[in-house]
């Protein structure tokens, strides 16, 4: 893919040229060298390609769903197709895109480098995780071909256990969830062990970049929550195939039990999505403010606190499912508690920016967007956690807007992180103008689409409805709001396409990336772009990952270089 510029070889670096010219992309060639690779960087890239493809597909489904809602009455599809499309949108986005997104694609690439390690602890299991992810994707495609799936991404019984017409797609979809779950478990396990055992010996826990803390907290949730969705999926499959009656009310079973099981995983899963994204945020905010991160330990421990508390709030999805009043009150209180560590992070990011010298490169624009988006998403979560408010808002568009503000907020960080590490991954610089423009259009379209849905929900429109023709008289302005929301989704699509082209263009035409284009201090910026096969050509020097004092802008290279004087690692 990337070859070294001619100018490079003619420089005064002949001595090191032999090692410098070989990087992880050029170390070996051919399809097989990728398919059987154990290099965490290549696995990260393969994940990235897979995840972006899935994101594209799920995005198409979303656009189709929004197009159906563009006007009242039938617009482009019938009700059954509509149900299937929103289900596939949700299932693909959640299980194939957002859950693996930041950890498996970005984390795989940078985490070992940040720790100064040569690879993750179990490279073969890492490759296996990727193929399990592929297996899950194939199962989902089977589901699509075998008649689809119309349960919503939540698979609630009895939609998933008995349905009027046989929808065979349920079983492959559940298998997909099971298999992707294992992929996620193995990724988390691998990262936790890597962080414990493969850190450079002189790197203490608090010398790690905060992204690593985010991944660590995520890994713990992946290990402890995912098996539960695994067994739930299996039970649902058995229920459907053998009619064993555990979740089927007509056989003495209990459908609410399914909801408990599902949310016992799926609430922690929302933190699987957002914790690594919050880690990326801490990196980007500090580097582009060119200022030491504020409140390092608070951010680090709030990740762990979120991971812990995240396990104790699942009942807030069952406020109107017949849960007892007392239990609901407890869950409500715990839900409020989760907001505290989340807010701690936001305040620390703001404090980091305060009096920093902020530069607005594309990753920073995504990071700033996220503060806005997550602010709204998190605060509306508090609305929903309030018992009296949730009763009318549950299962309305308000909830749809809430979880898009948090989950798709994660997408902002994912793309922001992609831009941030893109020069490191590919060795190419993208065109800043297009990156920024894409981000801004995405941001505008995003708010057009989803902020509108808060209003639609507040006015009382339930979610997952195919049509709102009959609501037009009851809810004034609903047709216009829906149309506005749909148009917003097209704007978003334009922004994302521009972003995609910007990145693709850079692959072919991009200027060669310097080792440290942004002035980052963590170890991945202290190796070449792209990194060599074993990540470092010489032993990395571990120091404070947010101490930028040794970095100076070098005009010739177009990036930062180290003057060599660094505060040493604390070793704690």
């Amino acid at each position, binding site marked *: 893919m990337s070859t070294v510029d001619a100018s490079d070889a003619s420089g005064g670096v002949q001595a090191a040229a032999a090692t410098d010219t070989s990087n992880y992309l050029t170390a070996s060639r051919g399809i097989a060298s990728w398919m059987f690779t154990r290099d965490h960087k290549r696995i990260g890239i393969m994940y990235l390609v897979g995840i972006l493809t899935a994101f594209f597909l799920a995005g198409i489904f979303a656009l189709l769903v929004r197009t159906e809602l563009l006007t009242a009455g039938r617009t482009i599809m019938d009700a059954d197709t509509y149900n299937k499309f929103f289900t596939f949108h949700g299932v693909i986005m959640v299980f194939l895109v957002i859950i693996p997104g930041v950890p498996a694609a970005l984390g795989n690439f940078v985490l070992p480098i940040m720790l100064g*390690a*040569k690879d993750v602890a179990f490279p073969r299991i890492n490759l296996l995780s990727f193929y399990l992810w592929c297996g899950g994707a194939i199962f989902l495609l089977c589901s699509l071909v075998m008649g689809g799936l119309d349960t919503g991404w939540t698979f609630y019984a009895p939609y998933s256990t008995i349905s009027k017409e046989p929808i065979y797609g349920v079983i492959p979809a559940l298998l997909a969830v099971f298999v992707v779950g294992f992929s996620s478990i193995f990724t988390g396990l691998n990262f936790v062990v890597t962080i414990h055992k493969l850190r450079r010996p002189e790197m203490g826990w608090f010398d790690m970049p905060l992204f690593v803390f985010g991944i660590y907290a995520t890994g713990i949730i992946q290990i402890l929550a995912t098996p539960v969705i695994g*067994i739930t999926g299996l039970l649902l499959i*058995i229920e459907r195939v053998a009619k*064993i009656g*555990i979740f089927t009310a007509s056989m*003495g079973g209990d459908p609410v039990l399914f909801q408990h099981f599902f949310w016992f995983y799926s609430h922690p899963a929302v933190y699987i999505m957002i914790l690594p994204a919050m880690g990326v945020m801490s990196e980007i905010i500090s580097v582009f403010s060119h200022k030491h991160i504020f409140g390092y330990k608070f951010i680090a421990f709030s990740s762990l606190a979120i991971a812990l508390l995240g396990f104790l709030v699942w009942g807030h999805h069952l406020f109107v499912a017949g849960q007892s009043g007392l239990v609901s009150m407890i869950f409500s209180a715990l839900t409020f508690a989760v907001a505290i560590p989340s807010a701690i992070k936001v305040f620390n990011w703001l404090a980091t920016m305060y009096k920093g010298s902020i530069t607005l490169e594309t990753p920073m624009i995504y990071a700033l967007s996220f503060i806005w988006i997550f602010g709204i998403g998190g605060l509306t979560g508090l609305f929903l956690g309030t018992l009296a408010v949730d009763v009318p808002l549950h299962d309305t568009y308000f909830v749809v807007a809430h979880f898009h503000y948090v989950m798709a907020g994660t997408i902002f960080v994912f793309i922001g992180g992609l831009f941030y590490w893109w020069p490191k991954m590919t060795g190419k610089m993208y065109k800043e103008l297009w990156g920024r423009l894409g981000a801004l259009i995405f941001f505008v379209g995003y708010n057009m689409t989803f902020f509108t849905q808060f209003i639609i929900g507040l006015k009382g429109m339930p979610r997952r409805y195919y049509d709102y023709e009959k609501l037009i008289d009851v809810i004034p302005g609903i047709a216009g709001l829906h149309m506005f929301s749909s148009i917003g989704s097209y704007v978003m699509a334009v922004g994302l396409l521009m972003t995609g082209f910007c990145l693709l263009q850079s692959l072919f035409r991009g200027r060669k990336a310097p080792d440290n284009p942004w002035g980052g201090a963590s170890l991945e910026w202290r190796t070449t772009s792209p990194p060599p096969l074993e990540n470092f050509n010489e032993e990395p020097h571990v120091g404070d990952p947010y101490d930028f004092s040794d970095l100076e802008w070098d005009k010739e290279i177009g990036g930062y270089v180290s003057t060599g004087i660094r505060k040493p690692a604390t070793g704690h």
Partner: protein
Amino acid sequence: MAEAVPTDSPEHAKHSPHLAHHFDTPLQQFDSGKLGMWLFLATEILLFGGLFCVYAIWRANHPEIFIAGHHHLDKTLGAINTVVLILSSFTMATGVYCAQRSIQKWLIICLALTLLGGLGFMSIKFVEYRHKWHEGLLPGTSYTYDPKVLAKENLHENVGAPAEPETHAEPPAASTAPAPATAAAPPPEQPAAAADEERSKIALAPAGPAGLRMEPAEDSESGDETVKNVHIFFAIYFCLTGLHGLHVLAGMAIITWLLLRAIRGDFSHEYFTPVDLGGLYWHLVDLIWIFLFPLLYLIG
């Protein structure tokens, strides 16, 4: 003890053929493997945890289902299986000990014995399953167990007589007797014999004490006349033992692989990580059964 064996000096490490390129020392590699395995075992416990949770909820809400259902299980076979698994755990532990001390011959013997234990367990499980299959003691809609057909003749004489639920060669007529009316409170306080006495005297049990009570549908009436939804017990029974059985099979596959490698002479005091980790896995499989046995077989 085990931890002290792999070396942590990088110089020595260069000579070890088992050291992967991304580790600095064999000790680091060993520790990583061990931590990874422990985390994996945690996920296994949570996987079963879901089923144990189903069990707990149902048992709390409908104890009578469990009382009625467990009489159909064969305690003797269950107990034998428990012993078999515990012994196999012992041989496995001995195997690890031998591997750490490069006692090749006994390592092979121990692994073979462990494998045999797994095989024995699965065979006995197979006998039990076949029996349930014949009697129609299956989950959900497959539950076709009909005591009237199986024990029509002696049903009347047997009323009031002590039951013989343990021996499965007999048609389990006794188990058709109504569950205790005290079903609301699980009756472990009663000695087993007294419970049997009691049971036959009791009239119809109410549907269930509390919680998410559901009326059974028409078609699930085919089971025990007096206790509704006994099929749920078998749903739980088959899910738990089935999942456990799959883990035993996986464990046997691992042990076979270890055995082949041991015969090839791969393991020594310098490198025994796979044996150690395989052993951990086998102990977990064993441990889960130790919970399953009383929870399913020894109720009431």
